């Protein structure tokens, strides 16, 4: 059992990101348009109410972990590492028996299909067959064509997970993030059961979204924090230290 530590990027992971905050992410114009069109009312639609976090985002949410293993009864080799995350009680099997990834016609899932191999003391995991999901909970998408590579690293009682999202549709560069846990044998995973319901009467097939240029919330984030709007739009350049002097110049220009 592992207890989550939330110290990295807490504001985004706790209360959640602000609308229009794409800063520091290597997103492209297609991702920006998806997020600009996104409406939080989406989560009131029955098909969306119970969506769990996908494998690449689940470690960011409320994510105390149970990690176990399935062992071959004869050889005692580890067939899979089995990971359960607290939020939505998502289950992942990380197969260690060199089985191939499924075909292009196999179903995609929230947790995808994962295979692992040891790279020194790090467990390297490659995940494919993910459903479309999100890289940030304000509508920034991650496509179903993405591949996720992870490194699970244990240092005594600390566990660090490096998650690398490679998405040819919505990211121009790999998105690298880390999440952390502390060994905690006493921690419990709470029950989590979600069944959708009609919360709001809507016309059949209604899909909440903003038309291009009509989302008036998009500028609030940058305005509230005194940032130039260009910084809030994100992009690979905003990830690197080279961007800091430019950002300072733009902030000065705003004053």
């Amino acid at each position, binding site marked *: 059992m592992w207890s989550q530590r939330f110290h990295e990027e807490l504001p985004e992971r706790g209360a959640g990101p602000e609308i229009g905050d794409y800063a520091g992410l290597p997103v492209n114009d297609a991702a920006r348009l998806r997020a600009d069109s996104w409406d939080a009312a989406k989560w009131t639609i029955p098909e*969306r109410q119970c969506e769990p976090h996908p494998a690449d985002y689940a470690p960011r949410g409320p994510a105390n972990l149970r990690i176990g293993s399935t062992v071959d009864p004869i050889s005692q080799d580890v067939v899979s590492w089995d990971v359960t995350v607290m939020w939505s009680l998502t289950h992942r099997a990380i197969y260690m028996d060199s089985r*191939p990834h499924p075909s*292009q*016609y196999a179903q995609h899932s929230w947790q995808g299909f994962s295979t692992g191999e040891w790279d020194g003391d790090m467990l390297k995991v*490659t995940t494919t067959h993910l459903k479309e999901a999100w890289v940030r909970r304000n509508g920034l998408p991650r496509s179903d*064509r993405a591949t996720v590579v992870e490194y699970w690293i244990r240092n005594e009682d600390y566990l660090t997970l490096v998650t*690398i999202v490679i998405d040819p549709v919505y990211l121009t560069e790999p998105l690298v993030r880390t999440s952390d846990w502390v060994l905690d044998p006493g921690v419990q995973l709470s029950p989590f059961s979600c069944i959708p319901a009609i919360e709001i009467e809507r016309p059949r097939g209604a899909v909440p979204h903003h*038309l291009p240029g009509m989302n008036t919330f998009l500028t609030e984030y940058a305005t509230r924090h005194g940032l130039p709007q260009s910084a809030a739009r994100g992009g690979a350049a905003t990830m690197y230290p080279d961007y800091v002097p430019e950002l300072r110049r733009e902030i000065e220009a705003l004053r």
Partner: protein
Amino acid sequence: MRRARTRLVLALNAALAAATSVAAEDELEVLPVQGNVYMIAGAGGNTTVQIGPEAVVVVDTKTAAVADRLIAAIRKLSSKPIRHIIVTSADPDHTGGNERVSSAGTYVRLLDTFDPRGANKNASIIAHVKVLERMSGPSGTKAPTPAGAWPSDTYFTNDWALFVNDEAIELVHIPAAHTDGDTMAFFRRSDVISTGDIFTTTGYPRFDPEHGGSVTGILDGLNRILEIAIPGENQTGGTAIVPGHGRISDETEVANYRDMVTIVRDRVAALIGAGKTLEQVQAARPSSDYDGIYAGLGGPAPDEFVAAIYRDLKEAKR
């Protein structure tokens, strides 16, 4: 740093290519869906197969070129007779194997018992009557397809039903969707919906007035799927979806597709409302945030998809 990341991407992509088993497009691949239902992918539209103690039910028969291989694949799943073929539309990549697969099966009707010409023991081919009209052509003209490929059992209402292999199979007709003769098959015990080309994972939807289709009908069909499908707890599992083309799916993936079609339609409608011409609408690229997912996979190109919506919405305003 950026160069290192580029190398990382290339290395990871190479590893992925090695790890992922990608079947050649013309190879048939059999995948279990759930319950009594299987999907045979590749070489044309998807084929859905239901097996059981009585017979085999087939939904769509791919192209004529692979009919013998399709029959061989079905025979590996079951030695029971192929009794019914359900046709989701008149498209040649869904009906091309009708004649061969039907003749490899058998179905004796009450009518056949009393028919002095002798029983037609081929498997029945079930479709909406519009499919028969399109496959047989108008009276007095040369039929576009051989008579042996035509539906032998048609319906003209909004639904029909069979009960085979201890399972109810509901046939749902959606008027004017991909075509005017679309049928979706819902296997109730197995909890699988075979959608035909109303839903695919390999491109934007194809619909045109020449075949009786419309974007409104596509959305009607997608919303109908969402009304039938029930997800498992925490939106995981539940009703399985066999699309017309592409991978096995579920409610969430249909909802993603429905959302995409709805949003692009609404954007085109707004541009029409602003007085834009088709060329101006296409130049605005109202599907650009979805092109990376749905373009270039064999379906309509983005401009074609947008033009089809534009045409439908303009026509509806008249």
